[in-house]
């Protein structure tokens, strides 16, 4: 199909600009999307990855797990419908730790370490095996200079812990989550063994008096501020997506309509509409894919420049989906104009009423 590429080469500047705009649009789209899902992860990944099917919280807490209080009664009631080894109390404590040279905000998640399917570690000891002062911490704490076997010195609680392992994707409100053994945690003076923040269990949904039973998804969504933040980010991303898809479709529509004369000539020398469309689709696909590749290169360059604390996350599904939608829309944008041009036939190329 030399026609398509000859034209690209001939109108270099024009197509370079189209490519640039397409790249910029896609870059913005990927970037905002990456930030939105990065923020969501930093905010809530620890809740999303809780080892449970359901989370039991105090109804008064209205889904805010930090405010929730769950006592003995609820544990006993849940024990009636869920096997003992399928549930665990969860105690959540926010605090600040000091290390050799850095301070870090952390959230302790204390639970029974014989609970099934605890989050897997990426380094060090699994949570199931930690005892005493040992804790497993989200790897984000490494950014504060902590390493395996370092000591977390917590002045608020007046306690020291040792990092026995690292997890990934366990942050709460941008803070690193520290998994500890609930039994050992309860032995400490600051802990009140009768009060937990929540109960985690595997099994079917049940009712517990005065308690809300939430799925993990509901737990995440009821985090204070989460729905609001994600809602507005999602709206931004959606609008950005719609606008940019529209702009790029119209762009290709207009560029193609401009070639009306040329198509008349091609038809006059015998080219079918399919022949013209093929050459056009080739151009659009080439430009769109170039835009995709360049914008992804740009995004991956950008993430290297971003500070580590800036959460950024982009999935292949998102990239694939965007790529397919833009390809489909751009191609149809230009095919719509081909369709219109198809109606103007070779007659117009012949000077009629001179």
């Amino acid at each position, binding site marked *: 199909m*030399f*026609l398509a590429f*000859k*034209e690209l*080469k*001939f*109108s270099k500047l024009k197509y370079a600009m189209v490519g640039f705009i397409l790249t910029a649009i896609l870059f913005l789209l990927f970037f905002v999307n990456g930030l939105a899902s990065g923020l969501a992860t930093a905010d809530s990944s620890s809740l999303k990855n809780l080892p449970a099917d359901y989370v039991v919280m105090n109804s008064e807490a209205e889904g805010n797990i930090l405010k929730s209080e769950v006592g003995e009664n609820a544990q006993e009631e849940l024990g009636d419908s869920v096997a003992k080894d399928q549930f665990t109390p969860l105690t959540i404590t926010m605090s600040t730790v000091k290390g050799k040279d850095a301070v870090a905000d952390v959230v302790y998640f204390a639970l029974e370490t014989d609970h099934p399917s605890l989050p897997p570690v990426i380094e060090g000891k699994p949570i199931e095996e930690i005892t005493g002062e040992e804790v497993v911490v989200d790897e984000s704490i490494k950014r504060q200079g902590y390493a395996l076997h370092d000591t977390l010195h917590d002045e608020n609680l007046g306690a020291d812990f040792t990092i026995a392992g690292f997890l990934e994707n366990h942050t709460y409100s941008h803070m690193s989550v520290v998994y500890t053994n609930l039994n050992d945690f309860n032995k400490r003076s600051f802990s009140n063994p009768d009060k937990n923040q929540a109960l985690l269990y595997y099994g079917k949904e049940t009712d517990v008096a005065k308690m809300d039973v939430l799925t993990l998804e509901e737990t995440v969504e009821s985090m204070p501020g989460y729905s609001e933040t994600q809602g507005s980010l999602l709206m931004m991303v959606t609008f950005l997506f719609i606008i940019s898809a529209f702009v790029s479709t119209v762009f290709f529509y207009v560029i193609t309509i401009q070639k009306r004369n*040329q198509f*008349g*000539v*091609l038809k*006059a*020398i*015998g*080219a*079918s509409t399919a*022949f013209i469309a093929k050459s056009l689709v080739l151009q659009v696909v080439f430009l769109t894919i170039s835009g995709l590749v360049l914008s992804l290169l740009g995004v991956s360059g950008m993430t290297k420049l971003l500070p580590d604390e800036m959460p950024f996350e982009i999935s292949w599904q998102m990239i694939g989906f965007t790529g397919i939608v833009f390809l489909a829309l751009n191609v149809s944008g230009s095919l719509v104009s081909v369709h219109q041009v198809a109606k103007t*036939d*070779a*007659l117009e*190329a*012949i*000077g*009629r*009423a*001179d």
Partner: protein
Amino acid sequence: MNGIIKLDNISKVFLDGDRSVEVLKSVSMEIKRGEFVAIVGPSGSGKSTLLSIMGALLTPSSGSIVLSGQEVTNARARQLKKIRKHKLGFIFQTAHLIPYLTVQEQLLLVAEIVSKRDREQREKAAHLINDLGLAHRENSRVDQLSGGEKQRVAIARAFMNDPDCILADEPTASLDSEKGRRVVKMLRKEVKNRQKSAVMVTHDERMLDLCDRVLYLEDGMMYEERKIHDEKLPLR
């Protein structure tokens, strides 16, 4: 079977608002193989309309047409397209070249549309380029060519699909008469060499001596040269 194009009692009525205008009135004519025919007539007399009908671009209101020896009066659009693609070559008032292709590529484009770009087609293109005195321009782009050269490229392109008949609508209108005459001479040479037929609509009577036969179109009626020669000339 040497009538390449045969029109029988062709008429064409255009609807202009609520008025209907009969642009062609029962025109009959025949073009034979190897014949170079000119059609002359004042502006608005229906020359382009007639040529479009011959080129299967426009269907007549009544009458019958034979193209390349095939009866096409009631042919389907698909068949007409096929005939246009394989049996007819068009040359327009302006060259209508593709701006971003070289002279050689203009011709190879036709090859690609009609069939394949193979060595045979390349050789054919080279031949035509040579015949039309464009050898030194083979790899030039359109914007580097003069008007006459462009029109010669258009002629070469029209021959690329090896048509039975060339239809040219005022091919010299955008050229001065000297250059125009050269172009028409080359068109004639190709028609004669390749034993094709050609119909040329023209305003320029200085070209008429290069044609085998001249037909006059006036008020939608066709006259043989002799009938009106004296009273109608000059046309402009």
